[in-house]
């Protein structure tokens, strides 16, 4: 067992060496990790409840502006709720939604991609034409269609965005499978009777993991962005849930008088998505053997 641990530690260190060369990626990882910590510690660190209303203290500015106070560090919204608390709880919602979307779309997309690539022929044609149909619509438009069919709400928004994210996983995995299934270890597995499902999931899938992990981080940021967009349009998560997209859309009428109400949730979305993208890019470079020196 010792040999294995040494090998594992070694490959982790090697990975970190490559990854940390990319300063942007490290910054991205830092951003993402801080939002994860915020989300986990939300019950402890948020000063107030997410829907706690303070009558008479509507649209107070953040502490650094005139009229702001440290009682509400980032001010209050149009209903007198603490913005900072809502943003912190919102991190929980956004990350939960993002992870659920990626979880669903990865499982479905990967399985479809494995089947299309490995079986080929008619299976491939049927699956890939279905994927083409999904891709023919702009993703946000398709998500809107799905939500308008099954109705708004957190779960439905997750389902809608997950469906929209399936194609990228399927195409990526399929391309990988087409390459890997020609390798000799796949043929070797057939010579001692490994069935197609065993070959797909135990021989081929582990070899797709590097690209899949990268796609997962990028899919996470897209998922969060799409959910925020749905929320902004009033089709996703419903008020009073402190979701960043709804906070944006609720604050729209006050964009001139209380600009922090739109700016702050917007900045949060920006930071998470930027962080995930930087992190994903860094991961891709660090895991790609072709880019290694």
């Amino acid at each position, binding site marked *: 067992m010792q040999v294995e641990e040494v090998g594992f530690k070694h490959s982790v260190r090697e990975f970190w060496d490559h990854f940390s060369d990319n300063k942007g990626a490290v910054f991205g990882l830092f951003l993402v990790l801080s939002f994860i910590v915020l989300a986990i510690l939300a019950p402890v660190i948020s000063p107030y409840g997410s829907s706690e209303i303070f009558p008479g203290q509507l649209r107070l500015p953040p502490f650094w502006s005139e009229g702001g106070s440290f009682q509400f560090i980032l001010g209050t919204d149009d209903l007198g709720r603490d913005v900072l608390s809502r943003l912190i709880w919102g991190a929980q919602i956004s990350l939960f939604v993002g992870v659920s979307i990626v979880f669903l779309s990865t499982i479905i997309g990967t399985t479809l991609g494995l089947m299309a690539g490995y079986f080929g022929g008619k299976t491939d044609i049927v699956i890939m034409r279905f994927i083409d149909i999904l891709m023919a619509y702009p993703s946000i438009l398709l998500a809107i269609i799905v939500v308008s069919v099954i109705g708004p709400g957190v779960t439905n928004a997750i389902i809608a965005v997950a469906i929209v994210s399936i194609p990228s996983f399927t195409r990526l995995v399929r391309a990988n499978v087409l390459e890997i299934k020609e390798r000799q270890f796949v043929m070797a597995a057939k*010579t*001692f009777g490994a069935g197609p499902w*065993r070959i797909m999931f135990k021989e081929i899938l582990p070899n797709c993991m590097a690209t899949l992990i990268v796609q997962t981080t990028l899919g996470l940021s897209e998922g969060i962005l799409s959910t925020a967009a749905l929320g902004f349009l009033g089709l996703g998560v419903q008020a009073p849930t402190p979701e960043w997209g709804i906070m944006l859309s609720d604050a729209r009428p006050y964009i001139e008088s209380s600009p922090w109400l739109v700016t702050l949730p917007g900045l949060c979305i920006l930071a998470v998505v930027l962080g995930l993208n930087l992190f994903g890019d860094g991961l891709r470079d660090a895991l790609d053997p072709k880019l290694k020196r």
Partner: protein
Amino acid sequence: MTANSLLVQNLKKFYPVKGSSEKFVKALNDVSFTLPPNTTLGIVGESGCGKSTLAKTLMGLEDKTHGSISFNDNSFDNMSNKVKYETMQMVFQDPLDSLNPRKKAWEIIADPLLINSKVSKTEALKKAQELMAKVGLRPEQSHKYPHMFSGGQRQRLGIARALILNPKVLILDEPVSALDVSVQAQILNLLKELQKDLGLSYIFISHDLSVVNYMADDIMVMYLGRVAEYGNADKVFNNPYHPYTKTLLKSGHISQSEEIKSFPKLISSELPSPLNPPTGCAFHTRCPLAKDECHSILPEVESKNERSVSCLL
């Protein structure tokens, strides 16, 4: 037939040509041989002659078009897959490519066992480690990944994997061609030892004549899917009948005989397209000794002094 022999009769494998229902690429045409226990059959020929198709067809990776394969008088057609796997296993050419890079050594070796019988993981690990010792690897390395081994060690892993089901016949598809010359000898000697200990039969596919000369008891020379010459290895090497065998021996620089050294050059160095095989004897387009009748008459495989030769001359 002799007990525990592998008997292959008139094996054919035709691939249909796209866009035509009557044209076929005849990758294997009327290949027959007998492989008694504890012997090695060397199969030689240039690329595209059907060596690998023969390996794949024997392993059941490709369905045969015609012919029979039987072991110990039991036809492969009536055998369960499990029994087939326990009869014949295969070692691949490229040891790095034939081992899954994401699996540990013991998982790779134990895979055939885990798929084909109900053993616990602990038992499988134990069996894999025993086999690692048998092929000259340290059992402590059982939790390493393939890329942590050297080329020769990887091929030992491949051999261990092929042995775990206790097969009677091993197909060795160019098992040493991807290795350094110094390592080649170690692997060949390991294979010889294993053959002696376990009474294995080998089908040894190679394009390296000196390696085949070292390993093989019998030798089969193939040309465009057909048997050119088949017989006892020493006899074929010392006194080849078929002009193609002579050409191979000459290009391999391993024969001392004056007849081989002075054998005329091939007319063309290019292998004819298997899509449009030449009429008559397939070798006549290149054969320096070809006569008019070779262009039209297909030579049958004939027995001549305990040897099969397909040549009109």
